């Protein structure tokens, strides 16, 4: 993760509101092309972190760097690379759709000659072509949300900072947002997205960070985080025929196997070795005349890991 240059770098970031410590000494480096999911309960400090990274909030101490630019010191230069989207989609109701995007394209100081084509392109990207000349006040809520997304990407930002962007979206709009974010990542954008709907992030995040009480409890790729949450692997198997005794004998003879449970036609066990060490276990079962039909590790979901961390089963 650290081998590529960090597009988003948060260094010892701290934020105090009056007597409340919202973010406590947070450090994070997200390389280019990563989709980093920030998860945690309400009040964990996710929004504060994203607002500090986007320059909306000044950190009490520490610094936020976007594409190598300190956001607090050079806000206008940093904003060139930032696309910010929050959980509300406020728009200027008294403008037309193209005027709204044209305004933001100019506000982001895009080259004048590129603006008309870019406005058309972005309108097409969010499927609002037929509403191009319509007044915004006449759009539906979903359309306004799509327009908000178009605003955030109009200047081709290298970094997207998204604070609960899918809240309030219907399932179809969520899917569209997910596809849009994937396409942005494919174009090289780096995305920091916060959510407390974990299943929403699991499908497309390349890395996650779990925040609680202003601190980053755990971060890394999904595999790293889920693996680190448990020292053993959960393995599930199934077979045909009466192989219970043979399977039990083989498994119990391996010192790395524990917590063996059997169900009719199969079972689960915990394995303390690496992924490559599982192959000999399978081989020994087969050698013991167990007709294995399925054998594999059960990956933990982010949700399971998160629940474990938040209930302090793992720290």
């Amino acid at each position, binding site marked *: 993760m650290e081998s590529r240059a960090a597009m988003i770098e948060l260094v010892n970031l701290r934020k*105090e*509101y*009056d*007597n*409340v*410590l*919202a973010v*406590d000494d947070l450090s994070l480096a997200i390389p280019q092309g990563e989709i980093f999911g920030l998860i*945690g*309960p*309400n*009040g*964990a*400090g996710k929004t504060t972190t994203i607002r500090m990274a*986007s*320059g*909306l*909030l*000044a950190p*009490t*101490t520490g610094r936020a760097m976007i594409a190598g630019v300190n956001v607090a010191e050079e*806000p*206008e230069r940093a*904003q*060139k690379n*930032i696309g*910010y989207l*929050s959980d*509300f989609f*406020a*728009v*200027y109701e*008294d*403008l037309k759709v193209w*005027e709204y995007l044209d*305004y*933001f394209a*100019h*506000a*982001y*100081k895009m080259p004048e000659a590129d603006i008309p084509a870019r406005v058309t392109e972005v309108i097409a990207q969010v499927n609002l072509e037929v509403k191009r000349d319509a007044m915004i006040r006449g759009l539906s809520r979903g359309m306004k949300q799509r327009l908000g997304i178009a*605003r955030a990407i109009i200047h081709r930002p290298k970094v997207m900072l998204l604070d609960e962007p899918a809240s309030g979206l219907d399932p179809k709009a969520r899917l569209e947002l997910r596809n849009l974010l994937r396409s942005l990542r494919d174009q090289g954008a780096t995305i920091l997205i916060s959510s407390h709907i974990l299943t929403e992030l699991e499908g497309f995040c390349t890395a996650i960070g779990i925040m*609680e*009480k*202003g601190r980053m409890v755990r971060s890394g790729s999904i595999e790293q985080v889920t693996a680190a949450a448990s020292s053993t692997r959960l393995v599930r198997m199934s077979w045909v025929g009466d192989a219970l005794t043979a399977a039990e004998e083989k498994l119990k003879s391996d010192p790395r196997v524990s917590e063996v449970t059997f169900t009719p036609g199969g079972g689960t066990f915990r394995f303390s070795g690496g992924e490559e060490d599982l192959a000999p276990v399978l081989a020994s079962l087969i050698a013991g005349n167990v007709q294995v039909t399925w054998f594999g590790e059960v990956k933990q979901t982010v949700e399971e890991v998160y629940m474990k961390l938040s209930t302090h089963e793992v720290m």
Partner: protein
Amino acid sequence: MASLRDLFWTNPEFIRHRRAELRPARALTAALVVIAICGLIALACWSFQESELARAQAGLQAYGTEAWKHWVDTIEKNFAQKTWLLFYRWLIGIQGIALTFWTLFSCAQSVSGERDRKTWEFQRTTRLTSAEILTGKLLGEPVLLYFSMLCATPITIVAGIAGGLSVGTVLSVWLFFLTTALLLGLAGMWLSTLLESRTRGVGLIGALGIYGGVLAIYGMRESGLPGMAALSPLSAIISLLGADPSPSRPELAPVLFGREVPWLVMNLLLCLLIGTWLVVMLVRNLKRDYPEIRPLSRWQAVGCGASLNFLIYALLQPGRANSIEGHAGWFADAKSVAVFAVAMNGLILFLVGLATLTPQERLKVWQRRRNLGQSRIFADDGLSWPWLGMSAVVAYGLMIWGLLAWDHSLPLESRTLQTAAVQLLLVAVFVTRDVLFLQWCMLTRLRQPVVKGFMFLCLYYAAAAVIATLATVMSANVGSWAVALLTPVGAFDPKVTGAAFPAPTYVGLAFQVGVIGLMLVAISSRLQRPAQVGAAA
């Protein structure tokens, strides 16, 4: 030139307002309404002149005297010109009031309105600088009114010139209104940044207060600081158009360093000075998050205090006759000037204190660094008392300079300076105490701590006045002790010469210094409290 064009005409924020508010149908309607209103006013003016003529002719028929004949001849001879002039005065009066009023009120909702609609955050995350947003909003918010005025411009110019006014006068009146309107727009925008959301009631009261104040400042024409009246649009109407309601009085002109200057020049100077400080505050704070707003840096606050002091001595007109019979006039001697300057500095120091209040978060960081020996007392994030002290010293220096400058007409005695030094010290101590109290309020859990703190201070002074009155009823001596201990009023005893103030004044001074010490301890203990981790849901 390109950057100026970017700042004004191609400013995205200005274009946004232009697009939203000047759509063809609306612009056409506005133009037609303006022309219709102009037509109605013209008819009303013509009708008024006609009725005036009819009255004079009726008088001539009834009495047949030479005076009536002369009046009829005069009206008939100047009928067209007088009608045009009346028409012009009505047009410019309406435009002046509409321009200043609309600019103030539309700008007073600019930032708070965006906060309310939640569009402000998206604007803050663009690459627009504070200066660009400021210019765009200042010119864009009242763009419909500017357009309407533009529609009325040809008619107004024709009316003015046909009414016998020079082109210079017509342009001067416009310039006067425009600068006053821009200043009011800046004031409105600053008020808007201080409102967390569009609290229409508070915004309306604030804007009405500003507008009322600006109109009322016209009354300063006859004060010892006549130049201040140049901020009022009434000065332009009355002075530049020769429509003084009291022509029997001698011409009242503003003075700058003792020399008379035109009202327009004075207006431009004042708008430039006050407008510059408003622009500095807005550019510094416009893109900041609401709790991070700090009007001025420490040095800027000291500079602002010094410039306001400078303004007092520059606009001063010693010995200006007052309209009240038997009154010796304003600022008859150096002592009265010094007392006025000290009183004004009470207000100026309080404003400096308000501008230098530090948000809790920044103050905590400063305190931590100070405990480690990494920050100084004179720091931008520290407490404001050292800067208030510095402002008071600068004010005293300017007072010496100002009084020496007026020595030729107001002979200065060293005892006057001694008295003023003690008075200013006492005022500065009281202001420091009050500002530290407001700072302490900011460290508590009060909502709107500065507003509530200010109200507590008002309650304190009201209570002090009641206690002092009751004490005076009991005994004059007890009363003087109560006044000296609780308020700075004791320092303004006219019988005192030099530094020979009565003992209660110095005891009161020492008492307030002790209170300041207690305030500092209270603030320090608040700052030592560690931040608690927020409860996650």
